Every structure is written in C-alpha cells, then in structure tokens.
C-alpha cells in the first residue's frame, strides 16, 4: 500500500474526530541536513493498541519523541482528542495525558515502590510543616495494585524488583498521572516469557479502561497478536497502515524492508580464498555457541536487531568480553586473545560502532588517532618518527580523500564523515588480516557511504577477510558475499547473499 492511499485513509477518518484519540498530521523533523521524519501522518483510535513497526533507524523513536515533547517538530500538527496541542517539553505532554515507558526503566533504585510512584508529586498533609502524607501514598498505591491485579508490594525497594515488576511500577506512575495514552517502547525486551504474558493481560485491561496504547516492538509475532492496528515506518515516512488482523509476519516484513537496493554498491567480484578467520562455539555472557568462518577476499555481513548480540560477538573475538567457552582461529592457528592489545598484535582490527565513545580521541590530532594502534607496524614501537607519521597520514588522507586542513588538527574539527574516514584509515594502516567493521556507515551521508563501501571492497580484493556488522539490510545485501543472522545471542542463519532475500533475513532476525 502506498503512502498516498495511507494519506487518503487518514483524511477520511479525520472527519470522525472523536474516534481517534491521537492524530499526528504531516510531522516533519530534521536534524541538520538529515530528515528524520518527513510528512508523517499517524492516528490511533481511542482505547486500542496501535503498533509502530520499522527497521532500526526508520524513525519510530524520533516520532515518539516528538509526541512526548522531547523534540519540537519542524512541521506538522498534533491533535489529542480532536484538539490541537503544542508540547514545548515532556512536562506538557505528561500533563496532556501522554506517558512514555522507555526501554530502560528510569526508577530510583534505593527508594520503595510507593515512593517511586509518587516521586515529584508527593501528597502533603497540610499544617505548618507540609509533611508528606505517607499513609495516603501507600493507600493509593495499594488500591491501584489491587484494581489491576498486579503482583507487587508497595513497600518493596525497587532495586530488589525483577525487570517485569519495575515495568509495573512505571505503569503505576503512568496511571497515577492520569495517562490516557501510554507509549511502550520495546517493553518486553528485558522480560521473561511469563512476565511478558502478564504484561499483555495488563495491556488488555488498560484498553478496557479506555486507555490508548502505542506499542513499539521488534518481535513481530507479539505485535500481530497484541495490536489492533499496525503502522509501518521506513526511512522516516509512513509506508503502510492496516488492521493487524489483515496481516501476517511475511507481509509485515515485506513492508518493513521493501526497498530497492541502491546503485552505490560497488560491483563485487569475489573469489573467496582459504579460510582466514574461524570462530568455534563462541560463548560469553551475551552470546551462545556462535560459529562461523570468513575467507580471504570475502565480506561477510552480520545482520540482526539491536541487542541480538552482533557487537557482542565482535567484542568476544577482540578480547573485550571473556570467552566462557569456544575458540577463535586465524589462518588455522588457535588464538589466545585476552584484550584488544593482543587482538591487534594477532592481526585483528575492529572498527567500533560508536565513533565518540570508543572510536576517537576527539581533542587529539587526527594523525595521532590514525597511528594509535600502529606504532609497531610503522617500525616506531619504541621511538616515534614524527616525519614518517606525517608522511603516512598525508598519504592515507589523499587516498581516503580526507578533508582536513592538516593531519595535526584535532579530530573534533572534522565532520562526521571525515571522522569516520579517520577511523577507517586507522585500520587500513593496521593492515589487519581480519577486520571487523561495526556499523561502518552509521550517521554518514550517502556519498561518504559509497566511498567507504569502495574501500572495504578494495580491502577484500587485496585478500583480507572482513566481517561487516550492520543494521541496514540493503547495505549487507549490496556489499556482502554471505550474511550471518543473529537473534537473542545466537546465530540463526548463515546465508549466501546471492540467494537470500531481505524478507528471509528479517525472518531469521525477528521471528
């Protein structure tokens, strides 16, 4: 279904304003040159569950942040109960009856359940000292717990509660604030199956009380079972909307992924050679029994949802997370890598996903950032040769078409795409046999992406083995020879890209 028909559907429905508790019309949000949401129109019927679906980065969170007043939209209107609203901050949205349940629970761990529920709006007893009316607090919380059949002790300390119980505390807070619309962002990601089932019952009861719910989840079966309506976002626009009853997992996935592979992937002529890297039954705190091989000249993609254990696999290989069992082999030799220092010495490179947190020393010169792991390789393991360093960096800068005034400029003076190129240069210079790149094109524009694709391609062509972790399926399908799919810490598929479809990959990732 196209956006056009979605729009007409919306305008038809908008004539009957009372049916919709929430309508967002033509919401547009830009961050600098990036358009995160373009003309999104989205409506939720009163007392129903509407699921918001889409790939990572499709714009779901941004849309919800506009709704909750965290972001101000650059265009568009929000109607609540048929009345237009302006939220200049989260407080406004809360007052209008919109409550958010975030992925990470935000509670004060050392306080009790009832103290958390009333935090910031404690009832006062009156009189000259304005004491907190603790008895009233406990009484009210107890009533709410009983009315909703929660399994919760109002006197318990929050730090001792399970993730599911913490969610209940958040729900109590929402109810107490008189919430009429509750947004749940991946509420089941931290819950056990039993706790999730309890949550679904609670959601049904909330619906019965006339409370409207927007539900965001990557677990598609759960979404289909729970939601009344489903709205799919892709690249910051609404691409599809329909009652959940008309959909299957397959059709939903198709709408989530459905785009053509763009032109900017370089033609791949891969002739995979012998096995360079092999992981055997890797198990850490976060991943279970992950085994795969990467051959010389091969780019292997790794797909999966956020939290599926992809970066954690890289961390296990790179010596960051301790292996509980399993082993890694490079050129057939068993590695014993206990930290990144040893991993790099062994010939493994790791371009991390978070440029600011684990990638760059932003206030240090670009050249220092490039050579940081490479002194041994540049024959300056004891004493630096500043002239040689400069020469190498200038050459790399030229090759990478890095836009810097001087390699000595601090990395913070560069744009995001050039910062990413500095990091790619680092690992290019490291000349690692096996290179892991984690979200190598995150947050950079299309042109820079194409350049980085071409570089990875050249690297593979020169006989290196590359593992590319990415949340962008088209990127994986366009760049890789094979794709590994992970879900909940396990490898669920190892597919040849030539034969795989996006739908298939999503299946293994989400279902």
């Amino acid at each position: 279904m196209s956006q056009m028909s979605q729009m007409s559907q919306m305008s038809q429905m908008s004539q009957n304003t009372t049916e919709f508790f929430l309508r967002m019309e033509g919401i547009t949000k830009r961050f600098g040159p990036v358009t995160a949401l373009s003309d999104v129109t989205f409506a939720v019927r009163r007392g129903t569950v509407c699921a918001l679906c889409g790939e990572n980065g499709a714009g779901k969170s941004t849309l919800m942040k506009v709704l909750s007043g965290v972001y101000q939209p650059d265009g568009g209107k929000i109607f609540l109960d048929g009345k237009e609203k302006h939220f200049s901050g989260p407080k406004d949205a809360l007052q209008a009856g919109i409550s958010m349940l975030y992925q990470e629970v935000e509670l004060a761990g050392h306080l009790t359940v009832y103290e958390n529920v009333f935090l910031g709006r404690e009832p006062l007893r009156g009189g000259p000292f304005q004491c907190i009316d603790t008895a009233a607090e406990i009484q009210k919380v107890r009533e709410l717990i009983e009315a909703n059949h929660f399994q919760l002790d109002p006197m318990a300390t929050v730090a001792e509660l399970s993730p599911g119980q913490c969610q209940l505390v958040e729900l109590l807070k929402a109810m107490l604030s008189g919430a009429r619309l509750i947004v749940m962002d991946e509420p089941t990601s931290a819950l056990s199956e039993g706790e999730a089932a309890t949550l679904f019952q609670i959601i049904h009861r909330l619906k019965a009380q006339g409370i409207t719910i927007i539900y965001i989840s990557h677990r598609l079966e759960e979404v289909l079972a729970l939601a009344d309506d489903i709205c799919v976002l892709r690249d910051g626009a609404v691409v599809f909307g329909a009652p959940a009853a008309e959909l299957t997992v397959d059709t939903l996935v198709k709408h989530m992924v459905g785009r053509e592979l763009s032109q900017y992937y370089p033609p791949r002529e891969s002739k995979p050679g012998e096995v360079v890297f092999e992981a055997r039954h890797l198990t850490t705190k976060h991943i279970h029994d992950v085994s795969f091989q990467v051959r010389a000249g091969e780019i292997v993609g790794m797909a999966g949802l956020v939290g599926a254990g992809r970066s954690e696999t890289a961390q296990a290989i790179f010596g960051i997370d301790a292996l509980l069992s399993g082993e890694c082999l490079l050129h057939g030799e068993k590695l014993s890598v206990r930290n990144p220092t040893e991993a790099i010495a062994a010939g493994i490179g790791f371009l991390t996903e978070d440029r600011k947190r684990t990638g760059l020393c932003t206030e240090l010169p670009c050249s220092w950032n490039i050579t940081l792991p490479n002194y041994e390789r540049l024959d300056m393991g004891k004493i630096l040769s500043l002239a040689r360093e400069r020469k190498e960096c200038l050459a790399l800068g030229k090759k990478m078409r890095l836009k810097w005034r001087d390699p000595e400029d601090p990395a913070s003076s560069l744009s995001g795409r050039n910062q990413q190129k500095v990091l790619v240069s680092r690992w290019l210079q490291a000349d690692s046999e096996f290179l892991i790149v984690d979200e190598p094109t995150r947050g950079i524009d299309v042109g820079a992406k194409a350049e980085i694709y071409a570089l990875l391609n050249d690297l593979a062509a020169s006989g290196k083995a590359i593992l590319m972790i990415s949340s962008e399926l088209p990127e994986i399908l366009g760049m890789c020879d094979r794709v590994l799919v992970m879900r909940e810490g396990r490898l669920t598929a190892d597919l040849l890209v030539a034969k795989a479809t996006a739908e298939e990959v999503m299946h293994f990732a989400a279902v």
Partner: protein
Amino acid sequence: MNKFAKQLLPFSSLFFIISLWAFLEPDTFLTFQNFKNVLSSTAANGIIAAGMTFVIITAGIDLSVGSMLAMCGMLGSIVMLALSGASWGQISGGAAIAMGGWAMFVGTLAGMAAGALCGFLNGALITRLKLAPFIVTLGSMSIFRGVSHIINSSRPISVSAYSWLDTGSILGIPAAVVIFALVLLATGFVLKYTPFGRYTYAIGSNPQTAYHAGVNVDKMLVWIYTILGALVGLGAMVMTSRASSAQPSAGLSLELDVIAAVIIGGCSPSGGKGTMLGTLIGCLLISFLRNGLTLLGVVAQIQLVAVGLIIIIAVTSDRLAAKKN
C-alpha cells in the same frame, strides 16, 4: 597559529613577571646568584611536576606526593647512613656521620625506589579496585605522612655530609638544576616522541577509545604512577640534601604547588592536554612570583593569595581561548 598562541600565553606571563621584578628590584633580582637560587629552589618541585604532568594528562591526580616526599627522604637517608656503618641509635639520635660517595649514591637510589614502590601501590589500587585517583591518593597521602612520622618518632634524620646535590655543581650550574633539566628533557622526550607518551594522551582523552585501539590502559596507569613515585623520590633526595636532613614534615602542601604549576602550564585536569615545556613555565612562574614578592618584602601570606590568583587567571584564560576556538 592557535597552537603558537597557546604556548605564548604562559611564556609571556613569565616574561612579564621577570621584567616587572627587574624593573622594581633591579639590584637584587637581576643577579646571577638570585637566578641560581630561584632555579635551585624550583628543582625539587619541578622534578615532581614532570611526573605529575603525565598523571594529569591521563585525567588523574596524585595528592600523596607531598607526604611521599617526606617518607622517601627519611628512608633514603636511613639507607645511606646505615651503609656508612651508623647504628640505629646514631641515625635516630642525629649524630654527625661521615658518608662515602657510594653510600650516598645508593641511598639516593633507595629514596627513588621507595617512591617508585609508593607510586606503584597508588597505581595498582586505582586500576585494580577501579577507584578514583583522587580517593586513593587522598588516603595514601595520610598513610605516607603517618609512616614518615612513625619512622623516627617525628624527629628528623640528619645527613650533614649529603650536600653534593645542593652545593655541588657541574660546569658552574648547581647539580640540582642539572638534574632538573635532565629530568625535564627525558620526560619531555618520552611525552612527545614515544608511543608511551601518545598512550598517555589517549588515555586522558578517552580511555575507552585507547582500550579499543589496543592500549593496555591499566598497565600504562600503573607505570605512570610508578614513574611519578620515582621522581618524587628523586625530588625528596634533592630536598634532603638542601636541608642537610630529612624532615618527617617535609613537603607539607607541596602537592598543591606541584599541581598548580602543571595546571598553570596548560595541562587540563580533564585530561588529554599538556606539554612538558608548559610545566617548566608553570614551575618557573610560581618560583619567580614568590622570589620577587619576597625581595619586595611581601609577607608569605600575601604570596599565597597571589599564587592562588595566578592559578585561577591561568585556567580562566585557557578556558576562554578554548571557547574562542
């Protein structure tokens, strides 16, 4: 251009202070003897400041250097006296003992070794227990001070024969100043021209990044605190030689002077920034400021106020320059 301007600010303030004193007190200030005095009195602090520069570039701090200095001075002195055949009674009683050059040399090394051990302990606690350097060294500051008082029941240890570091000279330059210069050259070289130096900056700028780029962050930190400790030991022996005795109360609030010099020299307490040249200028600025004020007859209490103001002015101007950038 901007880099040049950054170096220029501390340089020009130093130049300004020297010119000011030269103008106000030309007869006493502008003498070779006075400059020699200022440099000699800067040596001990400067040697320690060189080590502190590494620590502060990693975004750390060591508050224990003052009391560590007292303890190292006591221990080094005891070693050189014992090697010269003195009994504990003579050592503790303050008898005048003749010492051989060899004994004094080994005693100096012993002082440094004691410092290195103290620094190693600081570094090991910071990295193993994942405690803030501020907390660990706040504790060890008290411990070292206590120990230096316990060693000889709060009495000093007299080493009247240990004078070469103070009165000796190499090519007419006081030995302490020569040692200070050598330490600055060596640490400056390490900071600028070795991977060790680069790792120091990287850890201060972003320890997570450094770790992911293969820097063994914990090992580096232990080394850095150990090196500072060894330099504190060296500074302790210079100071002991100057006073002809090791005092258990030596180096009281010395950590503040040292940290002040490093910060005035352009190191950022939040890490990743600083040079050895800056630290030298910071040390000289404080010393010349004090020297000139003393010559002008300004009392010590007012000197404290002046040093405090300089610290705040230096850091503020640095901040403003960064903002402009």
